[in-house]
């Protein structure tokens, strides 16, 4: 005898209890602390902060622990938490020129004021599994150098001085915020940048890669890539001046792209821009390539139909929380819709076969 | 800022706003029906209903236009303190509040854009009375026909012709509220 499936509530509770057990794993192995994740899986923490749009390494580490290392799930936890936070105000724009840089490289000049600083990078490591790490060996201390005195000027600033690169117009306009207003297309550049910096690293990477392979090619050089901490300042109306409320780590990438000229403008280089929370180098470079590709219209370039040139395509599909939710929802019951399709296919088949039989 | 400005808001905002919204939701869904709302005690000439509707729907992201004698210091202070809505001219208003004759001419208000008809203003009309008599209403939300004591007929007919563009109206008298969205067709004799 058939009994309709009941007990959804108990099934959910049991599933969650099992999940908690699986999350902990073998109790004979020491439990992972949130501080350990924050300190030792910092690049995962950075990615969760960037795509979660919330700079808080402790919360991001907690989310990674809760999500069993599933970074998109961790981003989701951070996003859902972020929504509930009151918005107390907006900071002033951060000054990346005043960044305390840990890393700063330029691919366009061999040397430049402020110098090339490799910093803590995987670049030039030989990708050989280091079995010493499995043995928890002590880490030898790294050499140090005195901190750079004064601001580190941007490479694009040098080019700008000679008019060799397009100007970046200063604006004090409040940028749009896609977390507070529905996305409206066409979007301006600020809105695009916000969408991409929150976007999925894998998606942005693939889009950027596609431009390098010719789908909306922009001939990008990394003018400069810098990673470091910047002060966050906020105007306090009661005080009449801005005070520093904290510090965030950022990765900034500025690309210098092939020149373009027109009848009114002599040839000059153009820019792509990437800015991402934390040490998120791959994402920042990819972001600047996608930004540049999306600027085809304002720069009078051809629409080659490349995916990375398609603003609506990029902006509507770069968010992994939207994507994963909709993707995974197809595992929810759909038997009502499926039933209606079943009936339709049965009826169409019956009609088709009747016609066939009549013909024979 | 006066003592009047500091008082007269919701004492339990989530619950009071929820109940007031439900009344407005029903009123807009069923044009011509009259509902009661409570919670706000705004300065004159705002009605309890107008104040409650504003507390429920307006905020710092929803600019408000005050028309006629509604544009007085006590009302300005009250809105600034409780709602934080920018006070603007008719053209930029998401909500406008005033007596009917002070809201005229309606052409000053934004009727929405052809691709975004939702961006139209909502006019909150201060009335002395609100009854189910007078103009005959038909259209979405109305089973056969409804009657409502509208201040006039022609302006609402002109408004409805613009559909899907057009203004939406919320009428208030004391603690009573009724609505007339742009989708409603209006006929018959005016009263009041």
């Amino acid at each position, binding site marked *: 005898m058939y009994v309709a499936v009941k007990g959804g509530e108990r099934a959910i509770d049991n599933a969650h209890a099992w999940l908690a057990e699986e999350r902990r794993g073998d109790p004979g192995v020491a439990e992972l602390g949130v501080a350990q994740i924050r300190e030792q899986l910092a690049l995962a923490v950075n990615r969760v902060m960037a795509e979660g749009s919330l700079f808080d390494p402790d919360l991001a580490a907690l989310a990674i622990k809760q999500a069993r290392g599933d970074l998109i799930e961790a981003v989701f936890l951070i996003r859902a938490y972020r929504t509930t936070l009151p918005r107390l105000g907006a900071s002033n724009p951060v000054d990346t020129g005043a960044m305390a840089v840990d890393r700063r490289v330029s691919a366009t000049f061999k040397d430049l004021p402020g110098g090339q600083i490799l910093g803590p990078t995987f670049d030039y490591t030989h990708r050989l599994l280091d079995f010493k790490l499995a043995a928890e060996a002590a880490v030898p201390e790294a050499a140090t150098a005195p901190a750079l005195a004064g601001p580190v000027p941007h490479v694009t600033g040098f080019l700008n001085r000679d008019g060799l690169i397009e100007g970046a117009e200063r604006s004090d306009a409040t940028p749009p915020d896609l977390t507070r207003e529905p996305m409206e297309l066409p979007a301006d550049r600020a809105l695009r940048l916000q969408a991409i910096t929150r976007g999925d690293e894998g998606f942005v990477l693939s889009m950027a890669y596609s431009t390098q392979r010719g789908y909306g090619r922009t001939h990008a050089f990394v003018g400069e890539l810098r990673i470091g901490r910047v002060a966050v300042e906020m105007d306090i109306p009661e005080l009449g001046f801005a005070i520093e409320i904290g510090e965030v780590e950022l990765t900034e990438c500025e690309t210098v792209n092939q020149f373009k000229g027109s009848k009114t403008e002599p040839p000059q280089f153009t820019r792509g821009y990437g800015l991402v929370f934390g040490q998120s180098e791959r994402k920042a470079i990819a972001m600047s390539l996608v930004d540049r590709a999306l600027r085809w219209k304002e720069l009078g370039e051809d629409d080659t139909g490349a995916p990375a040139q398609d603003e609506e395509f990029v902006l509507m599909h770069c968010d992994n929380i939207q994507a994963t939710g909709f993707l995974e929802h197809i595992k929810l019951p759909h038997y009502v819709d499926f039933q209606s399709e079943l009936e*339709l296919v049965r009826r169409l088949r019956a009609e088709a076969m009747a016609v066939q039989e009549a013909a024979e | 800022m006066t003592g009047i400005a500091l008082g007269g808001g919701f004492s339990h905002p989530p619950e009071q706003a929820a109940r007031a919204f439900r009344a407005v939701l029903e009123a807009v869904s069923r044009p011509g029906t009259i509902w009661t709302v409570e919670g706000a005690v705004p300065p004159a000439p705002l009605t309890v209903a107008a104040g409650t509707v504003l507390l429920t729907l307006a905020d710092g992201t929803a600019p408000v236009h005050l028309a006629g004698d509604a544009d007085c210091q006590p009302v300005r202070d009250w809105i600034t303190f409780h709602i934080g809505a920018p006070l603007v001219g008719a053209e930029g208003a998401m909500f406008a509040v005033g007596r009917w004759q002070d809201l005229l001419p309606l052409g000053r208000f934004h009727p929405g854009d052809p691709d975004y008809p939702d961006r139209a203003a909502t006019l909150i009309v201060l009335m002395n009375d609100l009854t189910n008599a007078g103009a005959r209403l038909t259209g979405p939300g109305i089973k056969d026909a409804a009657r409502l004591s509208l201040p006039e007929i022609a302006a609402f007919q002109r408004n409805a012709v613009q559909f899907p563009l057009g203004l939406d109206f919320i009428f208030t008298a004391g603690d009573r509220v009724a609505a007339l969205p742009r989708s409603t067709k209006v006929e018959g004799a005016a009263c009041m």
Partner: protein
Amino acid sequence: MTDQAYNFAYLDEQTKRMIRRAILKGLAVPGYQVPFASREMPMPYGWGTGGVQVTAACLTPEDVLKVIDQGADDTTNAVSIRKFFQRTAGVRVTESTGEASVIQTRHRIPEAPLREGQILVYQVPIPEPLRFLEPREAETRKMHELEEYGLMHVKLYEDIARHGEIATSYAYPVKVEGRYVMDPSPIPKFDNPKLGDCPAIQLFGAGREQRIYAVPPYTQVVSLDFDDHPFVASKAPHDCDLCGADESYLDEVIIDDAGGRMFVCSDTDFCAGRQAAGHRGRLSPAEVV
């Protein structure tokens, strides 16, 4: 009962005001999709975040809430959403369509007729009825503005040319008050006739796509069709095997691996009510024990 860490019905008041404004504009322009700044909810996009936000904006402490998914109250996602509102709004919940003042649904309209005083909130995955014909929002927005629905008619007509009938069985497009073409959410087309002239308020929430739209009570809603191929609200040609109903939408259940199957009402409250009233189907036990 309510979780004190969060505001009544979870959303903060400013977010609720923004959603409430969108709902009212949706009612003023029936069938038109109002953009709204959908928030990130503590459940995934695609799992009812739009419906949940609309419900949260409408609920009062006095409401009685019913949540269904595929017509059933006990499907896991319906259970999860119902629990969410019990926890964050402390509202009473019910499985009875008649008792509920707010009903959130995914993919069905209840069999029992709705009444005035009720709100039916639909979870919507893709609110744009033209989306699968034209993927670009900028284009579909213009098509709605200019009432250019020819593409939709061409698609439906191609179906007829190919299959002899319109091969859309759910999310069947409708025209509201002779103006906007609207996606009724993925309800089976069997439910389409219930959309029009309905005493209850019908609200549609699409969270990921950031759209809210509405059908006021007693509003004309017409399923698109052609004079020579009129719309037909179809269902499986069977009676319910548990309650014997011959006019309800049915789920097909496979009961063995030898081709055995049965058909049962998708609306569990409707079916249970009929069984309690003594109605029997082909596979009902002789007596209720």
